[in-house]
């Protein structure tokens, strides 16, 4: 097998190594870390100099009970595929992140969250069983104690996540009824998020707006509804790496202003497909190439509820820097999390993309420091730049996780570039 160069979604960190892609479950061995569609931004799905197992060929539905919504799948199936197949039958994955290309295995390993986190909690709250391949296959459930908690959000370090059983949630149909309202500034934005009792709520934030407009954006609230099944529409592709000025300050500022004004002052209600609502960017394949060959970083933190002021100060730093891209999201999170290393905490989460440039890396370092000061934490699915000490301070259960992982993978076969960079597995 020859070595290939591959990356996570951010393309800023690269790995050279062997990628295997097993076709049958019997080929699975816990001798190399598993990856899904590598939609984590940083180095969580990378194993430089070693082997990584691409799980996307193991993507079958093993059992589905239409009455109870209990679904067992192979871990390589994507959440977008599940939504496409199941919504017309009245069911949806209970939690869906911002891309439908995320696999079930990846969603477990990162304990991902979605626009309904304030109500539904994280992805693993709805997982009832996982088949882990260690030296032999082993089925674990929420009653499995430390091993369960180290697997949910555990970066795939306890074994190869081969299968999972999910409790789906009822969907009224395969369309979404979406209300969109302008949030005129930071305080208004936070107030709208606080007051929302919709099943799905998210704020798009104009990360270039300064002064009185700081923190302005659009708050989207959605619920599933019945509608005509839309005909399949083609996707677009980014055919090549964009030049570095494609997402430069003035262009982003102009785009954001137009995007903000797209929603009338009085707000509006629209009907969208499930795909458009949950996975708006998936229509443009390989959109990460817009950032050029140097790639990009996404900064995502969460801070406790009483620290929204600190988050506002971070937003101010971002807006003043003029480095942000149009992709910026503000959301109120609930408490729901399942594992030792799960990201969510009750509070506000902010996610902003930056092109991979020295100024942006310096800004991200400042934002990290502010996150620590606010008692918040960074999302490992996004991180590419932090240090082990900072992460361990944000995740106080790291030692418990590391002890469980040491037992589950004693020879360290499942280590990744991320676990090495952050020195997470040292006890």
């Amino acid at each position: 097998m020859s070595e290939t160069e591959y990356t996570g979604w951010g393309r800023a960190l690269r790995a050279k190594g062997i990628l295997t892609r097993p076709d049958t479950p019997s080929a699975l061995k816990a001798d190399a870390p598993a990856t899904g569609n590598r939609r984590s931004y940083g180095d969580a799905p990378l194993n430089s100099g070693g082997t990584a197992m691409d799980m996307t060929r193991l993507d079958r539905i093993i059992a589905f009970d239409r009455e109870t919504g209990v679904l067992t799948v192979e871990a390589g199936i994507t959440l977008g595929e599940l939504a496409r197949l199941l919504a017309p039958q009245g069911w949806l994955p209970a939690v869906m992140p911002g891309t439908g290309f995320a696999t079930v295995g990846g969603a477990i390993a990162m304990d991902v969250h979605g626009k309904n986190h304030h109500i539904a909690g994280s992805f693993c709250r709805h997982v009832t069983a996982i088949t882990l391949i260690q030296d032999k296959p082993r089925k674990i459930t929420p009653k499995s104690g430390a091993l369960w908690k180290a697997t949910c959000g555990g970066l795939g370090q306890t074994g190869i996540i081969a299968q999972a059983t999910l409790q789906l949630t009822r969907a009224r149909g395969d369309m979404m009824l979406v209300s969109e309202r302008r949030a005129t500034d930071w305080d208004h934005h936070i107030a709208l998020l606080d007051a929302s009792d919709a099943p799905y709520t998210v704020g798009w934030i104009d990360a270039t707006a300064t002064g009185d407009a700081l923190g302005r954006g659009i708050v989207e609230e959605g619920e599933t509804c019945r509608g005509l099944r839309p005909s399949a529409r083609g996707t677009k592709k980014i055919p090549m790496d964009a030049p570095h000025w494609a997402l430069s300050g003035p262009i982003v500022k102009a785009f954001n202003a137009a995007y903000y004004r797209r929603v009338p002052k009085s707000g509006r209600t629209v009907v969208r497909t499930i795909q458009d609502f949950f996975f708006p960017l998936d229509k443009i394949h390989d959109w990460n190439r817009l950032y050029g060959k140097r790639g990009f970083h996404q900064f995502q933190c969460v801070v406790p509820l009483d620290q929204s002021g600190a988050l506002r100060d971070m937003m101010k730093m971002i807006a003043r820097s003029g480095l942000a891209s149009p992709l910026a999201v503000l959301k109120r999170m609930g408490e729901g999390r399942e594992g030792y290393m799960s990201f969510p905490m009750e509070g506000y989460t902010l996610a902003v993309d930056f092109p991979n440039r020295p100024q942006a890396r310096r800004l991200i370092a400042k934002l990290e420091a502010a996150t620590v000061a606010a008692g918040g934490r960074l999302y490992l699915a996004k991180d590419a730049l932090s240090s082990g000490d900072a992460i361990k301070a944000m995740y106080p259960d790291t030692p418990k996780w590391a002890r469980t992982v040491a037992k589950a993978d004693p020879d360290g076969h499942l280590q990744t570039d991320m676990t090495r960079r952050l020195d997470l597995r040292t006890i």
Partner: protein
Amino acid sequence: MNDTWIILGASSTIAKAFTRSVAETGAHVILAGRRMDDLDATAADASARGAAGATPVMFDARDPATFQQIVDTAVATGGTVSCAVFVGSMPAQDAIDADPSLIDGTITDSLTGPARFLQMLAPLMEAQGDGAIVGVGSVAGDRGRVGNYVYGAAKAGFATYLSGLRNALGRHGVHVLTVKPGPVDTAMTAGLGKQPFMTTADAVVADIHKALAKKRNVLYTKLIWWPVMTIIKLIPEPIFKKMSI
């Protein structure tokens, strides 16, 4: 009338993609292959995607005793029977050089096994006067190349067999489609590194459905292989024998 698809070699990557595509149209799928636990999982997947039924059944190209049960299972569904053949094996040419007895198995897997099965199925399809046969060969069958000419010979034989079967069944309303893929990103090609004009299983399946709808006889996928192989076939033997392509 419901469709029933017999899928020979149902554990292959292209077969899995094809199974999904017909399952989502509500067809009944008969999944024939050797790895029964893997077929069970594929059957569950097909059912969840909307197949009217999904039945795993043992098929070994080297054991004709397994054939009749597949035909019987398909007939029992009561639907219009069609068959897609995805079997074949490709040992490395140097392995064959070291052990010429591997030729027997290669020819059986890619030619005589599936041909014998289709020959058993032919009277039934002729009687129903409907349905389709999709036979997956390879561009490797178009000319014997130094790198894999035993595999190529088996696929060439299969293509010629399908041509004759088309001639025999076409007049009875049964359509026979010969598919000649170039390199496809599957387990078979996983260790070979980057290949020219590589395509994916899903793209091959989309091409197969387009070709079936238009009643094409021979499908090259990707399409670029049609002009490429046309030129390669035209190279005179005295020149070709000195080339290694």
